[in-house]
């Protein structure tokens, strides 16, 4: 029945001079995610894009479009010619289909940017609404809170009728010049932080600290898998794997037990800043949420943050764990995050980490640590891999 999907972008339509850039990157991404559906055509006008399905089932295409940041609303639509009778017929057909889903009330919204069409919006509104009411049962009009909104848009290339609207991913389309380094541990929080950062139009690269043999191949795999899920929302992602064994062992040996976690975090922050510098990332994102664990008290943040003057973005800072878990389930990272492998944060976790570390103490202890050497060594050993949106490793077998 449906032959088009209408893509509406809310926020970016307002962005003044930057609008064009935003719309272009959005269109590029929309084309990218629909490339597997042969014959699909994407066209664009001032405040929306139209995806012509060319015979494809709308559902799988819709599922793809729902991963694209910058899209506010998605509607599956039928196109007709500029013919009032046909518009009425198709409107009725759509509403009848909606009745199968149990709708009891509806309203009609007509927009007529194509003024050559002879009928005025108000008249059409009445005409179509009346026609639908006469030909259906158990259906009434509710203009304030309808179960279904029948939208009819008269454009120069035809009339588009839709009444099945769904929410897009929201946010802003990715700007590849806005690069941010995400510290990705493998837990539940950091992928969500990455997702929320990407949502604001940012291109993310990820850093992961790997301490073989204390952390296994499986825990590295877990991080690669999480990165691949994130890549569904913004395209391929560069993942920097930092060899961290030596740093952790040295901290373990030289630093007091209750400060080892704080100092490990400071080392991670230093290394991440260096990688950010090299790749042109302008900020660091973490999955910290205030008060969640020892390293995330306000005192800890103060002490850890001391070692960098890069902006540290903490999109989860005020969220409760349940809210974070809900997002994590919605974006499909949860099942991967709960795989039970040790990561670099848990494997050396001391019995009683300091919850209120102080900058001066951390600095005093670090005098006995070869900080610069360890950072140099770690940065020099970084392995960078590109995690592709599509997994292609075994394509020949499948």
């Amino acid at each position, binding site marked *: 029945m449906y032959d088009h999907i209408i893509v509406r972008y809310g926020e970016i339509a307002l962005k003044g001079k930057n609008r064009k850039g935003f719309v272009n990157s959005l269109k590029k991404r929309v084309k990218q995610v629909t490339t597997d559906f042969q014959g699909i055509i994407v066209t664009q006008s001032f405040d929306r894009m139209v995806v012509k399905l060319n015979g494809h089932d709308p559902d799988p295409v819709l599922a793809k479009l729902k991963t694209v940041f910058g899209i506010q609303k998605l509607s599956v639509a039928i196109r007709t010619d500029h013919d009032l009778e046909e518009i009425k017929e198709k409107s009725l057909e759509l509403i009848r289909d909606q009745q199968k889903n149990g709708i009891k009330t509806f309203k009609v919204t007509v927009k007529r940017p194509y003024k050559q069409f002879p009928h005025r919006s108000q008249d059409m509104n009445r005409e179509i609404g009346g026609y639908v009411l006469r030909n259906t049962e158990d259906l009434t009009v509710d203009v304030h809170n309808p179960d279904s909104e029948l939208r009819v848009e008269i454009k120069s290339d035809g009339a588009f009728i839709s009444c099945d609207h769904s929410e897009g991913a929201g946010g802003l389309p990715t700007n590849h010049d806005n690069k941010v380094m995400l510290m990705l541990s493998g837990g539940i929080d950091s992928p969500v932080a990455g997702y929320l950062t990407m949502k604001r139009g940012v291109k993310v690269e990820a850093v992961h600290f790997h301490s073989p043999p204390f952390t296994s191949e*499986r825990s590295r795999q877990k991080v690669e898998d999480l990165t691949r899920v994130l890549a569904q929302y913004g395209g391929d992602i560069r993942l920097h794997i930092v060899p961290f064994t030596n740093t952790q062992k040295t901290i373990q040996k030289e630093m007091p037990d209750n400060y080892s976690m704080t100092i490990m975090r400071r080392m991670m922050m230093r290394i991440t800043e260096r990688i950010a510098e090299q790749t042109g990332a302008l900020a660091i994102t973490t999955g910290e949420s205030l008060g969640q664990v020892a390293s995330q008290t306000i005192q800890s943040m103060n002490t850890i943050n001391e070692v960098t003057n890069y902006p540290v973005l903490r999109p989860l800072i005020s969220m409760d764990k349940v809210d974070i878990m809900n997002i994590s389930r919605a974006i499909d990272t949860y099942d991967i995050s709960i795989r039970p492998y040790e990561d670099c944060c848990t494997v050396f976790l001391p019995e009683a980490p300091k919850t209120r570390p102080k900058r001066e103490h951390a600095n005093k202890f670090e005098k006995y640590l070869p900080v610069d050497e360890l950072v140099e060594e770690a940065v020099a050993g970084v392995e960078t891999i590109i995690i592709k949106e599509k997994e292609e*490793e075994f394509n020949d*077998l*499948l």
Partner: protein
Amino acid sequence: MIYLDNSATTQPYDEVIEAFRKTALDYYANPSSLHRKGGEVERLVRQARGSIASLLQIDSDEVVFTSGGTESNNLAIKGTAFEHMNRGKHLITSQIEHASCMESFRQLEKMGFNVTYLPVGSDGQVSKSDLAEALTKDTILVSLMHVNNEVGSIQPIKELGTIIKENSRALFHIDDVQGIGKVSLPIPDTVDLVSYSAHKFHGLKGNGLLYKRRNVSLFPLLSGGGQEKEVRSGTENVPGIVATAKALRLYLQQSQSNSEKLHHLKSKLQNELGAINEVVINTPRNSAPHITNFSIPGIKPEVLIHALEEKDIFVSTRSACSSKTAEPSHVLTALGVSNARARSAIRISLSFQSTEKEIEVFLVELKKAIHKLKQVMRY
């Protein structure tokens, strides 16, 4: 050789065998092992699952790997019955199901479940009013075959699903072992479980799939290490899974380009069979393009099969799974076919590789065989 028994099983594609060989040889680690080799195989299984899911337009976590159509049907039916028995003990199916469903229901009856076996019309379809009437608040499952394996009749799944969901809380299971790729069925919202078998689409025996809608819970029939998200324990048959993914992809590609040819072959076959005096066609009018069932009353089908076999032509009597019983086919009986006719049924089942030439040769040899046999035997 002319192989016209594709509903019994199909010849695996070369590429499928190659994928199996390579996987068995190179990726033999256990996907649950913690080491790198295990991780690699786990990725392979995940990618195979993803590939199958996207071909069937479902989510990856809705694919359960099984050992074949029989296991998929058993898991769907008994798994639902055992999981939801505290909600009710009534089950609904039809009289023309495959043995793996039929026998599951018989077992459940012995355990205290109540089963309604809906009758079918001469078109092989259950009546909508029968279904609506049979549904009660105790009904926990309706299980129906999409395309019948003996006659090729098609159940109107979409409409029946709406009736089930409007009138009950029952789960809806589809046996789509015969229909996949031949009779298009994008899985409707009303369907919760669907069974598939790899060797019916040029994959390998010992491999099956069960589509299980998200949030549908089943009682596992195999318990152990918790593979397949706890639904089906047992170390994954990795080479078989890879081979299944390969087969499904190639098969659905063929399905797109050869669907018309299959319909053409079917009408040619049925027109010419219909013109033979001794032949009665049992397959209903609106049916799957690959199955044609007919009878030659008076001639024992076994004899005819062996006569054709001498000419290197392979057809079958009925479902291979029930061909060892002497009873007339329960499917044909349910369709209202007389005993004499039901006893003398022959099934032709095509694949996308079948050619017009093969059909022509088959028809010529069939006519010769009928002519010869008519003179020597009657019963």
